[in-house]
C-alpha cells in the first residue's frame, strides 16, 4: 500500500495537553514539518517559554531549554552564540513575548541573532487563565478586562510582526493563521522559509501565528476558529512584512 500521509518525525508520537480547537497543535506540526524538510531535528535546540508552550520538550524530538517568562530570545542568544552551528528557535505566546519579554525580543531582533522565533498570538494568557494580553482586541472581554479592553486605559493591541519588520536586524517577518486549509498551507510555506533563513545563516526570522484559544475565549472550537477570520485577521493582517535576503 502506498503511504500518502505520515506524522513528522520531528514530533513525538504522543497526545498533547492542548484543549480541543487550540491551534498550538497545528503550529507544532508545521514547525516539525519545516524541521523535517531540512532534516535538522537532531541539530536543533528549542527554547521553550512559559505557559501552554512550555511543554515543547514533551512533543518535539529535540533538545530543549526552558526559559523564564519572556526571556526566550535572550536564552536563545546564549544558545546560538555558544553553538553557532545549531538551529535555534524560540516558541512564545503573546503574554510572554509581547509583554514581559518585549525588551528581549526587540534587542535579539535588532542584533540580528540568527534564530527563528515562533510567536503564537491568541489574544490572551492561555495557561494562566484568560487574562488580558498585549494583543487582546479592543473591546475583548477577559478575566482582567471584564468590561472589554478599553484602549483609552490599556492602549491598542501590539502588531508585533509589523513592529519588528522595521528593525534593520530582522531578515524575515511574517504573520500567518491556521483557520482555513488555505491559510495552513500558506503558513507551512512561510514557517519553512523562516527556518530556511537560519539554515542558510541569513539572520533573524519572526513568525507571528494567529491562534484560537476556545477555552479562554468561552467559545466552542468552530466559533473560535471563525473568530480568527472575522475579528483577528482584519486587525492583524496576514502577510510577509520583511523579506531581506541581502542581510
Amino acid at each position, binding site marked *: 500500500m502506498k503511504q500518502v500521509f505520515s506524522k513528522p518525525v520531528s514530533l513525538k508520537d504522543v497526545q498533547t495537553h492542548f484543549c480541543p480547537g487550540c491551534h498550538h497543535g497545528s503550529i507544532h506540526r508545521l514547525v516539525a514539518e519545516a524541521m523535517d524538510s531540512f532534516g535538522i531535528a537532531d541539530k536543533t535546540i528549542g527554547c521553550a517559554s512559559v505557559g501552554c508552550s512550555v511543554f515543547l520538550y514533551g512533543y518535539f524530538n529535540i533538545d530543549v531549554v526552558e526559559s523564564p517568562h519572556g526571556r526566550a530570545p535572550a536564552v536563545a542568544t546564549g*544558545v546560538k552564540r555558544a553553538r553557532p552551528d545549531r538551529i535555534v528557535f524560540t516558541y512564545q505566546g503573546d503574554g510572554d513575548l509581547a509583554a514581559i519579554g518585549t525588551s528581549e525580543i526587540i534587542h535579539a531582533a535588532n542584533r540580528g541573532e540568527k534564530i527563528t522565533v515562533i510567536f503564537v498570538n491568541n489574544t490572551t494568557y492561555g495557561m494562566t487563565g484568560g487574562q488580558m494580553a498585549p494583543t487582546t482586541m479592543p473591546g475583548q472581554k477577559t478575566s482582567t478586562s471584564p468590561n472589554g479592553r478599553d484602549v483609552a486605559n490599556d492602549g491598542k493591541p501590539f502588531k508585533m510582526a509589523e513592529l519588528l519588520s522595521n528593525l534593520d536586524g530582522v531578515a524575515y517577518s511574517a504573520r500567518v493563521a491556521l483557520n482555513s486549509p488555505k491559510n495552513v498551507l500558506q503558513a507551512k510555506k512561510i514557517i519553512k522559509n523562516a527556518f530556511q533563513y537560519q539554515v542558510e545563516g541569513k539572520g533573524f526570522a519572526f513568525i507571528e501565528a494567529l491562534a484560537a484559544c476556545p477555552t479562554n475565549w468561552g467559545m466552542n472550537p468552530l466559533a473560535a476558529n471563525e473568530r480568527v477570520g472575522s475579528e483577528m485577521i482584519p486587525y492583524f493582517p496576514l502577510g510577509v512584512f520583511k523579506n531581506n535576503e541581502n542581510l
Partner: protein
Amino acid sequence: MTALKRKFVKGNEAVAMAAIEAGVQCYFGYPITPQSDIPEYLSRELPKAGGTFIQVESEIGAINMVLGASACGVRAMTSSSGPGISLKQEGISYMAGSELPGVIVDIMRSGPGLGGIDASQAEYHQATKGGGHGGYRIIVLAPNSAQEMYDLTMLAFDLSDQYRMPAMVLADSVLGQMKESIVPNPRPTVNLPAKDWAVRGTGGGQQNVVKSLYLGDGEMEKFHWKMHARYQELADKESRWEEYQTADAELIVTAFGCTSRIARTAVEMARAEGIKVGLMRPITLFPFPKKAYADLSNRCKKWLTIELSTGQMVDDVRLAVARDAEVEFYGRPPGAGSLPTPEELFTQIKKFC
C-alpha cells in the same frame, strides 16, 4: 618551569583575566560602576581568545544569555553590582532550578536603591541566602585581594561545574578598583564530571531537556531534598577559610572581603601591644565554614564580627559558634566615608578584650 610574570592589575581586571584562563567561552554583561572594568577588559580580550562578548540590553537579558550558553555546556559568566545583581536574581533562580553552572561576579556597591558606588558588604544576605525566589542556594566566594579575585574566579568555574549550581564571586568596590600585584596562575587540572545533561542537538540520540518546571506529584519536593543533600556535600568538602594568629587567641575577630584586610592590620596592632587576638576569615560564604567556627569557639569564647553593614554575616557567626561563646558586632553601613580605619578597629578590639 619558567616563573610566571607578575602583573599589577585592578581586582576587576584580575577577575576578567582569570575568566579567560578558566576557559570562559561567553560573557554577557551590562555596564555599572564599580564593575565596568570587567566587561571593558573582556570586550577587548575575550574575542581574541576565541570567545563571545555581548553587551546586553539589560541585566535580565545578560543572565538569561548565561543560562542559554550554560545549558549548552560551555562556561559562561556575567558580572554586575547592586541594582544589576537584583535584576539578575530571576535568572539565577531559574539556573538554580535547572541545575545549571555559571559564574556571577558581584562587585558590591552601597544601597538600597541607587545607593552609591562605595564599598559595601550589604549583599551578604542576598548572595548567601538565595537572592531570588524558590529556596535555593548558590556557591559564594569572598576574595580579599587582587590575587584572590583571580584565584577564586577560577575556582568559581570549577565548583560551579562540579556541583551544577551557579557560583558567585562576592567582592566590593575596594577590591574591584584596588591595584595589586598578582601571579596569573595557570588553570589547575581538575577532574570535572562530563556535562552529559547539556543541550547540543540530540544527534539522533537521547533528548536532553534543561528545565526547572516540576508539576508531577512529589517531583518538586524530591528536587529540594536532592539539592539540600548537595548543599551539605558542598559544606563538607568545599568550606574554605583562613585563620591568622588564632592558636592562642583570647579574642577572634572575624570579617570577610576588604574588611578582613583592615581587621588584619588591627590584629597586628593589638599583637604588638601583647593582646592575644586572632583573625578568622571565611573564604566560602556559602557554604559558610560552620565547623571551623564551632571548633575554634570551643576554645576561644570571645568573638568580634566586623562588616560594612549593620550586621548580616554576624547571624551566621552566632549560629556557628559554641553556645557559650560571646559574639560582639561592629559595623559601618556602606556609603562614602564609612570604611573603618585600622585604628578604629583596634579601639573596638581593646574595648572588648
